[in-house]
């Protein structure tokens, strides 16, 4: 009696394993539907390898072959809570990170802006991981009043090549504003400090992080009103079995946002970035 029952159970699980090895991901989803409530939907995901832009402090930056920063801290905490092992891995420059996710070499790209192009190979969380507001930086010596984009008309602005600030602002800027593209944010800061431009538009937190390192923090400051309230989300590779985690991770992110954990972690990361910059540990 007992033996027969054990055989039956063993046979079923064995058949399941064989089927899963054929098409691990699609069967994982099927299994989730069948065994709802008895096992987590991400049972096939034993470990989450994730990466991010290696140069996007304070959200995340590369330190040796690891990625550190606020994103890593938040994601690690969520995955620990979900009981999933993880690794934050440095895989190369930002385009290479995206390509690795597209080809399923990594499971998750943390804290990035959803675009239609990225949606093709990434499944984004509905709730943002972090706020990523765009801000207007000005020289302390030449302050500027900014309530609406019209306030910037007639002034010279700076922008890092390839940056976008939301469709509304981008369209307005194209018609009415004068924005000079520079190679990097550092160049823009140098130009702002030198008075060659009146303002620089960039991400609030990343801008602050760069200021810390550039040594211009006492001369340049961000205006309190953001250009827009941008957000960044987590995107799971559609080729990874760990994409089943997206709902669970989404819920945790919402909770972290509500509890203010995300904002706190950002502030901590800024401090960490500052420390590492002071030590010159950054590669």
């Amino acid at each position: 009696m007992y033996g027969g029952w054990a055989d039956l159970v063993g046979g079923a699980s064995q058949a399941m394993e064989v089927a899963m090895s054929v098409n691990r991901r699609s069967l994982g989803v099927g299994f989730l539907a069948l065994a709802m409530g008895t096992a987590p939907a991400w049972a096939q995901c034993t470990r989450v390898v994730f990466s991010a832009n290696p140069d996007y402090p304070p959200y995340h930056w590369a330190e040796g072959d690891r990625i550190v920063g606020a994103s890593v801290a938040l994601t690690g905490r969520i995955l620990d809570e979900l009981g999933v092992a993880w690794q934050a891995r440095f895989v190369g420059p930002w385009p290479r990170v995206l390509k690795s996710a597209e080809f399923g070499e990594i499971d998750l790209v943390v804290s990035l802006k959803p675009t239609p192009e990225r949606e093709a190979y990434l499944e984004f969380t509905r709730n943002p991981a972090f706020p990523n507001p765009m801000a207007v930086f000005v020289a302390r010596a030449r302050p500027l009043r900014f309530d609406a984009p019209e306030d910037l008309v007639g002034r010279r602005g700076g922008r890092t090549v390839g940056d976008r600030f939301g469709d509304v602002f981008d369209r307005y800027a194209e018609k009415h504003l004068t924005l000079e593209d520079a190679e990097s944010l550092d160049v823009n800061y140098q130009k702002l400090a030198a008075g060659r431009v009146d303002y620089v538009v960039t991400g609030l937190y990343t801008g602050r992080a760069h200021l810390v390192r550039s040594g211009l923090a006492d001369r340049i400051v961000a205006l309190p009103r953001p250009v827009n309230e941008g957000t960044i989300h987590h995107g799971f590779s559609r080729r990874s079995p760990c994409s089943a985690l997206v709902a669970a991770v989404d819920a945790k992110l919402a909770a972290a946002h509500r509890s203010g954990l995300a904002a706190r972690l950002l502030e901590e990361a800024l401090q960490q970035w500052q420390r590492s910059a002071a030590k010159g540990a950054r590669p």
Partner: protein
Amino acid sequence: MRRVPLAGRLAVRQALSSALLALALGIGFSALQVTRDFTETTAAEQREIAQVLAVLREPAVQAAYQLSEPAAEVVVQGALSFTQVIEARLRNDFGETLAHRRKDVAAPPADVWWARFVEPTNAYTLPLEYGAAKKRVGELRVITSQGPRVEHFLQGVWRELGLSILRSLIIVLALSVLFYGTLTRPLTAIARRIRSGPATPGEPDDAARAQTDRQDEIGEIASAFERYEREARERTLSLEASAAALAASEARYRRVVETALEGVWQIDAQGRTTLANEAMAQMLGTTAAEMVGRPLFDFMDDEGRQAAAQLLRRRLGGSSERHEFRFVRADGSELWAELSTCPITGPDGQIAGALAMVTDATERRRRNEELRAGNAQLRAMVGNLERHSHDMAQIAELNELLQSARSEPEAFDVIRSAGQRLFAEGSGGLSITGHDGEMVRVGQWGTPAWVPPHFSRGDCWAIRRGGPHVQAPERGVKCMHHPGDPIGNLVCTPLYVDGALLGVLHTADGGSGAPRDETLRQRIEIFGEVIKLGLSNLRLRESLREQALRDALTGLPNRRLFDETLPRELARSSRSGHALTLASIDVDKFKQFNDTHGHDVGDRVLRWMANTLTHSIRSGDMACRYGGDEFLCLLVDMSAEEARERFERLMVEARSDLDPELGARVGRVGFTVGLASAPDCATDAAALLRAADAALYAAKARGGRCVEVAAPQAVVEIAVGH
């Protein structure tokens, strides 16, 4: 004079073949060189590309690592700046092409001929690895076109080939000139010398003559030819001499043929005469000129033609032989000829006809016939003699057998078997004279058996004529005993002994012999003589034996015969169990007759007694004169009492009729009988005789003229008393 085409000239051919050999070798070595050169250029290209890739490595690694298409584009452009490179492609490690560019040059057509031997393009791949960890980030692939290199290389090859051919042509020219001087000219001089024959005397062919002095192969050829020409001249002279000798010889042989005494006749394969000499023509009664062209068969009759056609075929088959043959002369008479023939072969080795040496054999053949006839006669004579000698042997044997025969039936058997042997081819028999004068057949032989068992003496002409009588089927008077059936010639021979006819010998030859065959006649005569002699001898011997056992006075068996007979009859009686009675008879008062009337009357009394006894006994009984006036009778299968009755009746009858004269002279003659029978009185001869004698004495004692029977008991007592 035959013109040798330029291409056929020895010098040109030699030069061409040398040049071709040189060209082939040149091309062979050039091909080796070309292969090596091509391998070197390939290696050089590889080295160049390796250098290019070394220069491009770092930018390519960066572009692949950064996944930067602009940077990749720069690298690909750089690669294409090298002339050999027609295509370059940079890929990242995800398999995506970051940059790809192809030169817009005319690619060599895919079906260009050298593409079968060399790949039209070469591909080189450089793996891209980033950083100290050698992380693979992509690969750079460049493709070079082989076209320009191969085309350039081929130009060199064509140039080299052209030069080779030019070199060969120069070699051809040089060698042609050289060979013309060293080979063609001397050989042409020799050839001209051979073609045009020896130069006119006094104007020697210097060019050719000079060649004989050379110390090489051409010199050898020239010398050999000079020698050959000299020998040929000598041979021609010798042949002419032979032809003359042959003509003389032929004339001589023709004379021999024409004057030969034997006929010579030659025919072709169809049998037509191609040659005949006068002797042959004379034999056939014609002339030689007329014979030529006529077929052999004209001189034969039909039978001869068939035989001749067969012979001719055999002759054409190729054998030689001698045989005799019959021809018909022109005047129709017969010619026997002996032919010795042999086949003649034509120039092609086939049989073309036949040659015959003919000798007239007519005369010899006639002599041979005569000789053969004489020989046959002689052989017949010898045969007759042999036959006669054989007959004599048979007859001598017959004579011997007849002398040994003990009775006439035995003798007749001997005669019959001898007749069968002597006259085996015919039939016959012997008849002898019987008691009543009739002829009785005693033996016959052969078939058919025709001699009648009896015939009268008067029926036979031989007996009537007193000599042999011959009766041929169509001739001569036939005897009455002739059967009338065909039995051939019949001879009846009467056999007379001392003027008395003994018998007749009949012999018929079955129709095989001549009527007057002397040998047969002699044989019959001798056979008859022997039969006469043998049979009369036998009869003489029988008569002598008779005389020894009979009493001469009475003709009765004498005492000797009786003594032989009595034990035999006793033994038979004891075997059969029948009685045997012995009678002892004595004439009463015989001494008185003798003394009173003389011995003559005494003899008549004894003869009367004998006749009386002879007439009274049965045929199986026996009466004999035992001595003096005592007679004995042996009565078989008769008891004593029967005998007593028989004798007592005889005494009463007293047969005076047997000698009436005696009765008249002496009156009645009486006799006394004593009887004893076996086995009652005795079982042996002497005892029985004594018993009979005792009974006789007893009867005498009673006064005679009575019959006394010996008593059995008395006999037993007497026997016991003995």
